[in-house]
């Protein structure tokens, strides 16, 4: 027994209404001083018990009406003869026998006994103490004529394109929709990447759904089978029809089935088995085995942002999934943006079931958002993975001025040596060690950094060709510079103040602190830690970085800042600037002290790093995350920081808007050509555009009034290129525990629809009882009226 509108079963509580009315009436009786008592008394005397019985019967009928009506509205379903008997026939029989007691004086005891027996059997049935008789005998009309609630899971991942698998799946759906019962409802979920419903709700309009399904392409990322099945189960559990079904149309590739092995598979099985009226599962295989498949597996860029004219090295990994061997005859092309003419091309060799790499170097001659594609021109079974793209930002070179407060002639002993090396790795690679780069390519750094000692800093004009000034361990500044720097920041420049042992803390507090120009993000209170003690240190708290400068580290693949040991740092007084909206703590230490604090100052930003930028107070420069750390901070302070533009399918695309652009209209064009409007929303001080519907791999164009301002590349999973089939035995093994509800159809020959129809004819789905219950309700209402008249008459 189950209910299609389970929540309405609560309506059964309205049974208390007739009870309450009865009790209310009894408690609020009228008092009549009556003369003809002898006429009344003889009636009462003879029939007191009968009257009580009749009142009980009337009350029971009145209470039963709302209960049965609630069952009707909740659409009670009996799955088999057992529940039909114990939950429908016996309770109704109990009620009927009870009524019969009132009508027969001589055989009243018999009806009473029968009624009691039926009631007892029902109660035992409700608590599960009943024989298993009839459990396996399902109740149903022929399945083909029954309206159904169906969810079709359509695998629209790229691999479905192999041997027209996707179009076969589409024709299966159109066959299904054409034969759909008018009262049926069907939902289609696209499985590729994140499961997505074609229509928000199940629909009974096969035409509209068919049109949408016909317009779909297999462009999706690797399917997440279990989350799709979970979603389908949720939808189907709320279906309005008794016949429920989940149909999975997929190509059954090995990577899609990995997740069945772990706990999520068990969770789904458990959920399915605990679902009342569980759906039938039909899995249709459209995956033809592929003979030949080549793919561009991976693209690695030397930098995500590149300056104009700077060489960008692109390294692509190619994989051959076939047994065919290519000896220098595989043509690989580098394509730029929408311009399909090849920028470069190469012939490579790759062995059977092997991979190879190919490198290209490209220089851009104009700034702006760019997309590069690597394409294999060899035709194969799955052409969609023969091309892979990557987004590149092309910018002007950034000028960074490093002011060294503790210079040294020894390499890496100066205060700014590490940061310079990190900011200009290529330049340092060729000059500092007097070695030539191994690749032989002359790569220029995005940042042009120059170092000067403190004494030279006095006399120069910082604004020329510099967008960021790093003050590394400076004791103090002379008067002119002290006033010059805030002005420089106010006009859009960036200043990074790094702590160190030479720093005159009281000078900073006095001149740039609260008593001075308040240029420091937070006032300094003192220092903490001992750089000599190897065992006393703190770490950078590994939190989620909301700040764009460090958001790169939210992806663990880009390294972790928490590896570094911070042995000494400067403490800042946060309480003084808590309400200042310009101040943000970008990163903290594990003990809660701020590590990196920024303050918006005019058009620019000043940042304070509370530890040294070299290895004096910490071992940060020795960690792999140091280079991206200083590069990110530097590019952010130079206002050139950009969130990642090449993301995996399903990850959001983010774009930081410049000030004053929040009111402009933005739209994004997704790979299938459709356009979506984007509304900027505020995150802290910045306006941000965010787009989360990135289930389709390909290039996304973000435009502002028809002018493209950014390009994003969403990459499909590499697993899509793996066309290995999962074996039937593996599927059956994975479906252990649900296999009795599962039907597997081989649809590779394109005749899946006929096979499905043949199977569907023999299914049974239980029976709805609302018609019976409604008849019972009507019967009870009539019965109540008849009994009321009848009971009055019976007494003599």
């Amino acid at each position: 027994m189950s209910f299609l509108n389970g929540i309405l079963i609560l309506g059964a509580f309205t049974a208390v209404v007739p009870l309450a009315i009865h009790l209310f009436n009894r408690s609020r009786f009228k008092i009549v001083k009556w003369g003809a008592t002898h006429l009344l008394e003889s009636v009462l005397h003879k029939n007191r018990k009968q009257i009580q019985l009749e009142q009980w019967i009337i009350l029971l009928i009145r209470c039963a009406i709302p209960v049965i009506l609630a069952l009707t509205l909740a659409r009670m379903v009996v799955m088999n003869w057992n529940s039909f008997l114990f939950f429908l026939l016996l309770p109704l029989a109990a009620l009927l026998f009870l009524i019969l007691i009132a009508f027969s004086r001589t055989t009243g005891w018999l009806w009473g006994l029968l009624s009691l027996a039926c009631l007892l059997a029902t109660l035992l049935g409700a608590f599960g103490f009943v024989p298993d008789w009839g459990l396996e005998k399902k109740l149903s009309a022929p399945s083909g004529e029954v309206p159904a609630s169906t969810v079709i899971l359509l695998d629209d991942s790229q691999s479905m394109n192999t041997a027209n698998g996707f179009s076969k799946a589409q024709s299966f759906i159109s066959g299904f929709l054409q034969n759909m019962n008018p009262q049926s409802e069907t939902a289609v979920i696209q499985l590729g990447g994140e499961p997505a419903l074609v229509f928000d709700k199940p629909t009974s309009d096969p035409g509209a759904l068919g049109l949408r399904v016909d317009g779909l392409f297999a462009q999706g990322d690797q399917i997440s089978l279990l989350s799709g099945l979970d979603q389908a189960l949720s939808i189907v559990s709320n279906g309005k029809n008794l016949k429920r079904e989940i149909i999975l149309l997929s190509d059954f590739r090995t990577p899609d089935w990995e997740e069945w092995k772990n706990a999520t598979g068990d969770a789904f099985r458990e959920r399915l088995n605990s679902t009342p009226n569980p759906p039938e599962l039909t899995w249709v295989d459209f995956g033809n085995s592929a003979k030949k498949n080549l793919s561009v597996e991976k693209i690695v860029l030397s930098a995500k942002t590149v300056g104009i004219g700077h060489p960008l090295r692109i390294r692509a990994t190619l994989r051959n999934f076939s047994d065919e061997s290519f000896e220098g005859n595989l043509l690989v092309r580098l394509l730029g943006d929408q311009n399909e003419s090849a920028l470069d091309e190469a012939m490579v060799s790759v062995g059977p079931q092997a991979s190879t790499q190919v490198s290209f170097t490209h220089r851009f001659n104009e700034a702006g958002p760019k997309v590069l594609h690597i394409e294999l021109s060899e035709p194969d079974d799955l052409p969609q993975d023969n091309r892979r793209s990557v987004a590149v930002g092309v910018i002007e070179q950034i000028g960074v001025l490093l002011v060294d407060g503790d210079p040294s002639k020894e390499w890496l002993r100066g205060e700014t040596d590490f940061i310079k090396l990190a900011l200009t790795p290529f330049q340092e690679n060729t000059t500092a060690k007097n070695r030539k780069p191994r690749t032989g390519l002359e790569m220029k750094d995005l940042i042009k950094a120059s170092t000067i000692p403190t004494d030279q800093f006095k006399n120069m004009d910082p604004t020329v060709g510099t967008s960021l000034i790093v003050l590394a361990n400076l004791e103090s500044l002379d008067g002119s510079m002290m006033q010059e720097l805030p002005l420089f920041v106010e006009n859009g420049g960036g200043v990074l103040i790094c702590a160190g042992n030479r720093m005159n803390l009281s000078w900073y507090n006095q001149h740039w602190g609260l008593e001075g120009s308040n240029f420091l993000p937070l006032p300094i209170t003192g220092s903490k830690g001992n750089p000599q003690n190897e065992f006393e240190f703190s770490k950078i708290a590994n939190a989620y970085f909301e700040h764009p400068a460090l958001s790169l580290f939210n992806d663990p693949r880009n390294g972790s800042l928490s590896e570094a040991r911070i042995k000494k740092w400067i403490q800042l007084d946060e309480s003084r600037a808590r309400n200042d909206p310009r101040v943000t703590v970008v990163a903290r230490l594990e003990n809660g002290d701020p590590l990196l604090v920024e303050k918006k100052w005019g058009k620019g930003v000043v940042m304070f790093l509370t530890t040294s930028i070299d290895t004096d107070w910490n071992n940060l420069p020795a960690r792999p995350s140091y280079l991206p750390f200083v590069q990110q901070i530097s590019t952010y302070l130079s206002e050139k920081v950009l969130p990642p533009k090449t993301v995996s399918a399903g990850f959001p695309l983010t774009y930081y808007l410049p000030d004053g652009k929040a009111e402009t209209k933005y739209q994004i064009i997704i790979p299938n050509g459709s356009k979506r409007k984007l509304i900027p929303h505020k995150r802290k001080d910045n306006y941000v555009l965010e787009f989360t519907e990135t289930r389709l791999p390909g290039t996304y164009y973000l435009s502002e009034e028809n002018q493209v301002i950014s390009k994003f590349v969403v990459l499909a999973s590499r697993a899509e290129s793996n066309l290995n089939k999962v074996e039937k035995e593996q599927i059956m093994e994975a479906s252990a525990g649900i296999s009795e509800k599962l039907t597997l159809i081989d649809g590779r020959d394109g005749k899946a629809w006929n096979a499905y129809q043949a199977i569907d004819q023999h299914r049974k789905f239980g029976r709805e009882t609302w018609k019976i219950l409604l008849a019972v309700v009507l019967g009870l209402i009539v019965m109540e009226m008849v009994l009321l008249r009848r009971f009055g008459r019976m007494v003599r």
Partner: protein
Amino acid sequence: MANPNDFLDPKDISRLANHQVLARRVVEGFCSGLHRSPHKGFSIEFKQHRAYTRGDEIRRLDWKVFAKSDRFYIREYEEETNLRCHLLLDSSGSMGYGEDQEESPSKLAYGSRLAACFAYLALRQTDSVGLTTFDAKIRSMVPPRGGASHNRQIIDLLAKSKAGEDTDLGGVFHEIAPQLKKRGLVIIISDCFGDIPSILKGLAHFNHAKHDVVIFQIWHRDELDFPFRSWTRFDCLEQEGMKHTVDPMHLKEAYLENLKEYRESLVQGCHKHRVQLFSMTTDQPYAEGLASFLSARAKVGMPVHL
């Protein structure tokens, strides 16, 4: 001192008076008693003149008065009343039903008016009339007498009577019967609630004493229709503590059935004992009821055999 107008509505009296023929028949009926024409042939002593109405014997017209006034008058003579009218009014608890209702009087009030009306009519016709109120036993008694002032006594007793105790009609009839020394007309005004065989035995006692018995059975409309709908507690008017909380809808038909049975057996019993039973309901104007009773009695020739 009770006001006769409380019991005798001038309107009702005028209505009965307007039916002069009817009234005459009543009076005649009262007057003639067991003898067909008591005043035929002799006049004892002149009493009064009365306006002529159709049906009066022409020979009784006073032609002298006609000659003086040009109007017809009948001469009437004082004659010895040969009819004694005994009014028996049931003042048991059950007669008190309807006291708290505004639209109609209680059964006792209705019965009292009826008794007053009879007394008035009888006394107007110079018959003697007596009144006995009773419940389980005799409460008070005014012996039969004639004369206009006697009316006051009867009215006073009616005013004093209150519904209260239990009923035992059979027993009380046996008690009353020996006290009615001379035979006459016994008018019982009661709801006749009680054990029917016992009542009939009491009536037989009256019959045995050669009384002419008429029962006016007084009903309240509620007792006949049982119009109650919601849950009701019926408190017995006669026995303290007898209370029944019931759903009246449930009982209605059975009650009506019971009522019908009871009425039928009472009618049959009365018929058997040659007692005339006349039912009236308190919502019925009593003058109208009385008039219809009298006319019905006239039709079957009852004046002769009253």
